[in-house]
């Protein structure tokens, strides 16, 4: 079974993280990482990218926008009675 190259590994990171690799490929992936500091760093950066992207989740709705939608809701309710 041929070893993975670094160039091949970078294409498989999401498959790896999603547990979408075959058992054989998963093993090849992990074996490569074990012996390659650059790819270890690459995968760490990939994970950090995912974590940082998650911090973009917004939770605030401008009050006027929410008020406007609630007003729409009230109108809808009145009209549908």
């Amino acid at each position, binding site marked *: 079974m041929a070893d993975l*190259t*670094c*160039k*091949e590994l*970078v*294409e498989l*990171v*999401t*498959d790896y993280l*999603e547990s*979408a690799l075959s058992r054989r490929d998963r093993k090849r992936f992990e074996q490569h990482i074990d012996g390659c*500091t*650059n*790819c270890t*760093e*690459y995968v760490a*950066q*990939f994970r*950090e*990218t*995912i974590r*940082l*992207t*998650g*911090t*973009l*989740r*917004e*939770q*605030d*709705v401008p009050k006027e*926008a*929410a008020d*406007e*939608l*609630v007003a*729409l*809701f*009230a109108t*809808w*309710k009145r009209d549908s009675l």
Partner: protein
Amino acid sequence: MRIAQRSRHRDESALIASLRAGDERAFRQLVEEYTPGMRRLALTFVRTPALADEVVQEAWLGLLKGLDRFEGRSSLKTWIYTIVANIARTRAVREARSVPLSSLAPQDADDDEPAVDPDRFVGDGHWARPIEPWRQVLDAEARSVIDAAIAKLPPHQAQVIELRDIEGWSSEEVRNVLDLSETNQRVLLHRARSKVRAALEEYLRDDG
């Protein structure tokens, strides 16, 4: 049925009953929970904030109109986001008719762009130069880099990364709302993440 799903059903049936009864507080809560993500998703289709706001408002109206017929086969969340996607898609098509064809993003899943610039590797597939560790960065600083990188992604990639990595959805939820195959979803996600990583690398290296 799994326990989480069963409790989701119970909570959602109660919520839907409140909405049908005209409970404004329940509606406001729903608006606050979903509007930011709906707007971000809409923006990946229509690309102007004003249009995205219209899409979101239209989607809420669509939800109200459909409320009496909603049977809870999907979650409320995936239902409302599906409405957003459908409305935004229609709008994007309409919008596209008035812009030059060349400015339309390519259909992103079919291309074969590499995750990392091929010049970064030598002939045998090893890294040509060591990967530099990133300097420390504040989350807020990184966010603006990521936001800019996502804005440049082809629409399908942007849609998938929005829902998977920003909203934190499962791949199954994303596939349902965006109507993608499992493989396709994963390919789009990988391209999107790879480009965002590259943008962060660029920023965290140059500015170091």
